[in-house]
């Protein structure tokens, strides 16, 4: 067995660092008994490890030792008092109690200072994070209120629309696409008793900024303007009241509407 090679393999360091399997450990231990050179090398490695640790020591916090000694049940002061008091029973107890009291007072005040500054710091952090959270909640709250209002308005509109649709006095007039190849559609809800009229878009094409749709009624063979509307309105749109309508039609007109319908651009139409 080549001892030099065995040492050079680094197995002894692994042994010292306790990273070998139990089997490997046993093997090393058996060889160490057999070869004194291995024992010497182990000693040198251990000494080296200690030297390295000593040379790279970092000063521990001063309270650490006191904590440790306190954890194992305090320092052996009781014994000291016992021994000494046999020789000088009157002198020793006084300073002993004094330093004891002072020690505890100092320790208590230091502990109090540490604890209270930590608590102050901790409360500041907590206050800061809750004030942030509060601002965030406020923002969320106003956003929710806004959304609620929007939804509420939309709901009011829908309820009003349903009133119209479910009212038997309103007649629904469907307008189909003039160009049969298109699927444009819209309808008019018209109350012949009160003359009220509402428009509902099912499908109309998108217009440019300069264009609007215009609704017409045919009364006594003549077109009568019933008002303009945008291509993207939803729900029922209140239009101008009309009497004796025979037909409804929608044309594309310049924004604001025209006096006479541009018949070429008639999109949908339907008879009452």
């Amino acid at each position, binding site marked *: 067995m080549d001892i030099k090679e065995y040492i050079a393999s680094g197995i002894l360091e692994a042994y*010292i660092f306790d990273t070998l399997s139990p089997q490997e450990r046993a093997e090393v231990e058996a060889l160490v008994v057999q070869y004194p050179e291995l024992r010497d090398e182990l000693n040198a490695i251990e000494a*080296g490890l200690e030297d390295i640790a000593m040379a790279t*020591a*970092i000063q521990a916090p001063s309270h650490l030792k006191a904590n440790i000694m306190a954890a194992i049940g305090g320092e052996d002061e009781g014994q000291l008092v016992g021994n000494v008091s046999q020789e000088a029973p009157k002198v020793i107890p006084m300073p002993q109690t004094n330093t004891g009291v002072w020690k505890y007072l100092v320790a208590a005040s230091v502990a109090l200072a540490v604890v209270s500054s930590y608590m102050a710091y901790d409360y500041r952090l907590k206050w800061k994070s809750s004030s942030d959270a509060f601002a965030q909640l406020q923002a969320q709250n106003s956003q929710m209120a806004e959304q609620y209002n929007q939804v509420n308005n939309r709901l009011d509109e829908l309820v009003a629309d349903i009133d119209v649709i479910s009212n038997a006095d309103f007649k629904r007039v469907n307008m189909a696409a003039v160009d049969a190849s298109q699927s444009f559609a819209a309808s008019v809800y018209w109350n012949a008793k009160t003359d009220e009229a509402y428009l509902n878009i099912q499908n109309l094409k998108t217009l440019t900024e300069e264009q609007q749709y215009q609704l017409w009624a045919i009364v006594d063979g003549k077109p009568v303007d019933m008002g303009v509307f945008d291509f993207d309105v939803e729900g029922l749109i209140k239009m101008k009241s009309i009497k004796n309508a025979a037909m409804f039609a929608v044309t594309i007109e310049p924004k604001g509407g025209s006096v006479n319908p541009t018949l070429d651009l008639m999109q949908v139409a339907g008879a009452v």
Partner: protein
Amino acid sequence: MEQDRRNSVLLFTLHLNITDIAPKSLHIEEHDLVLRLQNQDKSALSYLYDKYGDALYGAAQRIIQDEDVTSEVIQDVFLKIWNKIGMYDAQKGRLFTWMINLTRNAAIDKIRSKEIKRSAKTDSIDDNVYTIDRQNSTESSVDGIGVKELMDDLVEEQRFVLIKVYFEGFSHSEIADEYDIPLGTVKSRLRSALKHLRHKVKL
């Protein structure tokens, strides 16, 4: 306190006397120390702390990188030494080797239980080691040698293995598996690195 100081002085004189007579004093003194610890002599633990506390603290702090957690670990380690001294077997190595292995294992358990991600740590370990040394340079130990200086002229491969084993608690086979280095190479590199450090510390 007074008692501690007396014991320290006593031990110190004892140590000096034996040193004068026998060269292998440390083992004899250690033997005495271990006996006293086994007899639950608190002054022996106090002496042990005075002598090795900062060295163990340094070893743990370099792994943990957090003073409070390190203090907690070192306190646990000393309590373990105090309660488990019966498990120490002088046949298998020095008291210090036993203590530093306890310390390193406790430190490594601590950071692993805190789920500090190994990958993040791997990237910055060099920086951390250096920062710690710089931070503590004023209050740092004894003769002021930092780990940085010690490792300065190590070959990169050796330094890597040393950092993995000594500061991050990798086992040899873990390094071999994770970094695809033959196990034998890991062992011999660690040996070379430690040997180099040993010489440097002695200078």
